[in-house]
């Protein structure tokens, strides 16, 4: 069966510090991978998606970047965090044989 792992679960970072969030998928190959951000009590904002290794599409101009160094690994990064980067970051995957998006458990990021 397929599983998605996302870590860390919570993170408190100072303004100006770097960020690296990692997401890995097991049990499938060539998944579509996504990063979403959810502000407190709000909807899901699509940040990045990837259909293959090294292929990244950015949806929102921002202080963040994404990379896909391996087929089942998706990384969200920032060189210098802003207060506005606080939120709940969710990684998700989809494939040709499953319906919908399967989300990781998320990372709650607080920038202080």
């Amino acid at each position, binding site marked *: 069966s397929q599983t998605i792992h996302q870590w860390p679960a919570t993170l408190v970072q100072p303004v100006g510090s770097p960020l690296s969030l990692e997401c890995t998928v097991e049990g499938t190959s060539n998944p579509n991978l*996504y990063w*979403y951000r959810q502000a407190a*009590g*709000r*909807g*899901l904002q*699509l940040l990045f*998606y990837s259909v293959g290794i090294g292929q990244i599409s950015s949806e929102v101009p921002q202080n963040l970047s994404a990379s896909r160094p391996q087929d089942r690994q998706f990384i969200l990064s920032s060189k210098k965090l802003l207060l506005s980067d606080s939120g709940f970051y*969710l990684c998700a995957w*989809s494939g040709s044989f499953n*319906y*919908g*998006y*399967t*989300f*990781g*458990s*998320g990372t709650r990021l607080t920038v202080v």
Partner: protein
Amino acid sequence: GQQVMQIPQYQHVQEGEDFTTYCNSSTTLSNIQWYKQRPGGHPVFLIQLVKSGEVKKQKRLTFQFGEAKKNSSLHITATQTTDVGTYFCAGQDDMRFGAGTRLTVKP
């Protein structure tokens, strides 16, 4: 581009009452999906609708896809406290989610 609007934003009901959330798109959707996010949790896939006019049921939940494939609804009959959470619709065409309807249930 495609935009999925969801109403209402919030809904507070007494346990046992019914609940409905609506999703409307400005363009025709190839499919629509519904998700539930419990407080403090992550969204969990509930169902996908593909056909025009499609109706699917999961116990007390009824999902409908409009004839024009531009709108959808989720109806919960006789809500329970376990139904609490935020319900999202999503069109997989452009990976965008509606803003969600936050349901609270008073026991």
